[in-house]
């Protein structure tokens, strides 16, 4: 403010203060001063009045309204989605008529195909419309298309796929090798898919052929990210709660990506806190980095769900959503029991997220590493809470191979500590120290150091095993196999090792010592090609 030695009416108010006064932007003191000056000075009042009125004139300017389609056009520009028309590559406004046939078509097509792809609920859904004319014999191209058909379920065309890829929801990790050939398909599977394909409206068939061809025409660097997206998307779609999946498949083509995104975000929000956030939050520094690496590794593991899911294509008759062997409550209980006896941890009471000071504090007798234990924990949670059964199964299979076990003695006191080793035997201390508490690792190490002991270090006769194992030997093994075992009685670990081999060769599972359920089925369903 101007210093005011003179009376206010002689003092010229600057335009700057006058404008700021009109705008209500003056500090209270200055405001009072300007008011006093205005009261005393008619000239200042006239200036203020002019300023105000010229400013008011601006209200005469027409204010354009955004056009009605502004939001649609903007959303489309942000995330271009193409029409579902056969020509396919032009963006269309929301009102384009070309896709009128499409929503119902895609709804049932996609649901059916995804059902086929991911183990089935197809039979509960839509009855396909009757086919009017006898189909042409399938071409070689058709066969190739069939191999990918389940992946195309929720996809309109190449433009949609590109938009999906740009949205960066499913292709963050290069875990899925795009050049991996589609899993071999049995003739009857292909026939079944082909039969379904033929029930699609001709325009949709054409669209799928075109999509398949456009993908084939791309160069590998262009194609691979799209294939990864496709795979991630198909697997994700199959795992979605049915209502969410329905919303996506039923959406109009130009809304589909919206639905995908919002389901994705919802899922991300819901799962991240529960499964991961607590652990990451409690950790710090190095440990946090380690945890994040573990979770990331796990995500990579989930990409393998694609391979596993693809393997389930053939399970047309599958009744529920939950895959074998988790579809049976009793078997799930046995699996938990197996985890307890084989890995030495109670799956229902896995340790909470790691705290720094407890870094090396594994549960007594736990045979898993810290990382494995954490992974078990989140795999199990993801499976039981969110239905990620496939990667849980694959993880369990891998763990069972990395930590093979042997049946425990019926007295419940396996040799796992130094003072349990009978006097007179050598104990290779440095080697057994990390194995204390762990069955059968500790006993195996002692046995290695003491060949031909007077008494075996573990159960090696039917009567020495727990009741389920004893019964298994006496009732499940063939007479011939039992005969093969007899010479090994009293020898440990040879006797139980041979027992497991014999069981495996008969596709049987030894209770408590092997994953419940047929070993071959475990292999078929859960052995990943990249591993072992």
């Amino acid at each position, binding site marked *: 403010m101007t210093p005011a030695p003179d009376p206010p009416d002689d003092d010229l108010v600057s335009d700057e203060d006058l404008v700021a006064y009109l*705008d209500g932007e003056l500090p209270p003191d200055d405001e009072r001063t300007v008011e006093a000056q205005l009261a005393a000075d008619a000239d200042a009042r006239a200036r203020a009045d*002019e300023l105000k009125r010229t400013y008011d004139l601006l209200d005469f300017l027409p204010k354009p309204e955004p056009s009605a389609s502004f939001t649609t056009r903007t959303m489309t520009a942000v995330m271009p989605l193409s029409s579902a028309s056969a020509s396919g590559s032009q963006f269309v406004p929301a009102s384009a008529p070309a896709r009128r046939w499409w929503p119902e078509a895609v709804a049932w097509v996609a649901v059916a195909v995804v059902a086929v792809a991911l183990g089935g609920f197809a039979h509960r859904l839509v009855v396909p419309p009757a086919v009017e004319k006898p189909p042409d014999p399938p071409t070689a191209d058709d066969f190739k298309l069939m191999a990918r058909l389940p992946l195309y379920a929720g996809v309109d065309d190449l433009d949609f796929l590109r938009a999906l890829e740009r949205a960066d929801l499913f292709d963050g990790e290069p875990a899925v090798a795009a050049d991996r050939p589609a899993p071999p398909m049995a003739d009857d599977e292909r026939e079944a898919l082909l039969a379904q394909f033929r029930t699609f409206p001709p325009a949709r068939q054409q669209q799928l052929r075109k999509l398949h061809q456009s993908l084939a025409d791309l160069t590998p660097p262009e194609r691979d990210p799209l294939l990864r997206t496709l795979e991630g998307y198909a697997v994700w779609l199959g795992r979605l709660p049915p209502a969410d999946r329905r919303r996506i498949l039923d959406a109009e083509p130009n809304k589909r990506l919206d639905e995908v995104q919002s389901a994705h975000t919802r899922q991300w929000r819901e799962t991240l806190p529960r499964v991961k956030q607590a652990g990451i939050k409690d950790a710090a520094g190095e440990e946090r980095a380690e945890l994040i690496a573990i979770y990331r590794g796990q995500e990579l593991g989930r990409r393998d769900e694609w391979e596993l899911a693809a393997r389930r294509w053939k399970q047309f008759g599958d009744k529920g959503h939950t895959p074998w062997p988790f579809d049976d409550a009793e078997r799930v209980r046995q699996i938990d029991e197996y985890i307890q006896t084989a890995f030495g941890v109670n799956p229902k009471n896995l340790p909470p997220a790691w705290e720094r000071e407890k870094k090396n504090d594994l549960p007594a007798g736990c045979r898993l590493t810290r990382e494995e234990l954490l992974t078990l924990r989140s795999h199990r949670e993801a499976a039981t809470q969110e239905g990620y059964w496939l990667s849980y199964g694959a993880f369990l299979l891998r763990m069972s191979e990395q930590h093979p076990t042997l049946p425990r003695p019926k007295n419940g006191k396996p040799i796992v500590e130094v003072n349990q080793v009978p006097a007179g035997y050598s104990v290779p201390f440095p080697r057994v120290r990390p194995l204390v508490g762990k069955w059968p690792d500790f006993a195996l190490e002692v046995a290695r150091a003491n060949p031909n002991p007077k008494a075996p270090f573990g159960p090696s006769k039917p009567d020495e095993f727990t009741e389920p194992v004893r019964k298994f030997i006496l009732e499940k093994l063939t007479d011939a196999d039992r005969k093969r075992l007899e010479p090994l009685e009293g020898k440990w670990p040879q006797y139980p090792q041979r027992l497991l081999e014999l069981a495996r060769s008969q596709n049987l599972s030894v209770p408590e010592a092997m994953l419940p359920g047929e070993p071959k089925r475990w292999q078929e369903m859960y052995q990943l090609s990249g591993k072992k």
Partner: protein
Amino acid sequence: MALRDPDIRLMLRVRADDRAAFAELVEKYQRRLVGVLAHLTGQPHEAEDLAQEVFLRVYRSRHKYSPRAKFSTWLFTIANNLALNARRDRHKRQAAPLGGTESNEFTVRPPDPTAPPPAQRLDQQELAAVIRRALDDLSDRHRMAVVLNKFEDMGYAEIAQVMGVGEKAVKSLLSRARGKLREALRPYIDMDGVLPADDSPDDE
């Protein structure tokens, strides 16, 4: 303040790739943005494209967004920059017109505001053209300050943030801009029947 601003919460959802949130944002701000951009560029038909471009930029930089100021401040900063670029491009184009034809922005050449006031009353459209011209004749920075202040009701502090200058500079910008508008529009403030009712005496 950050989390009290509901639009910041909305933008954080956009950052998390929530498309519905983005659509909400577009719905909410399109009117204001198109309005401001039309005033800034003087090109109603261009305003809509520019507004779309603003939203595109918001979407593209969503992952980099961190709530430091009011969301609208950030939005109008982007709008400001785009409007400046658009005017600059247009001037370049006009400097070297390809076909030598006159700009088709106005179908009717607006009256020159420095010309003597018309004897009879102007119709609303003509008056708008005069005002438009006066606004166009301001410098970019003056126009920006005026448009934000007048049409967005922004305070000096927020204008300062959008324009990347201090509050003092805003005060001076606005005062000079309004001085210029007063000079250009003085002949029109008394047009009978055109002005909003105002019976304060005036010697002019």
